[in-house]
């Protein structure tokens, strides 16, 4: 299992608040709609069921979009961290 590299969610990790560990990370910082969703769906396709993907994005619409994406595709949103503008979503592939 991989531990997500800093600085994504680093503060929470130091405080020991992060319990989810990701098998794969995806950096979508600087991308605008619809690219974070496009990239995360591509990344999920390459993974095996049960594995967890950590996606980080600073697009203001990402939080709502990642929730909606999970609801539509049936993949599980395990957690969502926020650090300033940055949102990191932990998604378990079904």
């Amino acid at each position, binding site marked *: 299992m991989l531990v997500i590299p800093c600085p994504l969610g680093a503060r929470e990790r130091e405080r020991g608040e992060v319990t989810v560990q990701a098998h794969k990370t995806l950096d979508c910082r600087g991308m605008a709609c*619809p*690219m974070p*969703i*496009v990239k995360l*769906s*591509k990344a999920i396709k390459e993974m095996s069921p049960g594995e967890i993907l950590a996606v980080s994005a600073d697009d203001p619409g990402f939080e709502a979009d990642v929730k909606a994406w999970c609801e*539509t595709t049936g993949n599980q949103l395990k957690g969502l961290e926020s650090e300033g503008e940055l949102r990191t979503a932990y998604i378990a592939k079904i």
Partner: protein
Amino acid sequence: MSEEKRMSMILFSGEMDRALAALVLATGAASMGYKVTVFCTFWGLNLIKKSEAVAHGGVLERMMGFMNKGGLEHMPLSRMNMLGVGPRLLRKMMRDKKVTSLGDLLDTALELGVHFVACQMSMNVMGVTKEDLAVPCEVGGVATFLNEAGKSQITLFV
């Protein structure tokens, strides 16, 4: 949900802003597991038409083809076109905000398997042949679209 998710869209407009909306929806839906069909008709043909394409047929078709060039770079804006300055400014604004360009979105849509259908009737009226189309697509008519739309949970007209 056992039924396959499908989205069918008619792209009637040939403006850059409307094409952007259509491409964002198409790529977004494809990423959410929808099988996406974009039916390009009338001005919407310009999205999938080669920019260097010349209309075939009589004087009227050729005149229309000259004034209605294909390709993303020739698209006007639906508002504030300002004789072609508008699209340039919007492209700059999109670049500054790191919004993906129309060309990249079109490539992404094709990569995600978005299915483009060119309207045979409007191709015929406007003097556009299959060789004038820049992206791999099917040529079809109203039944082709309606057959797909009938199976879709989402149908849109842009």
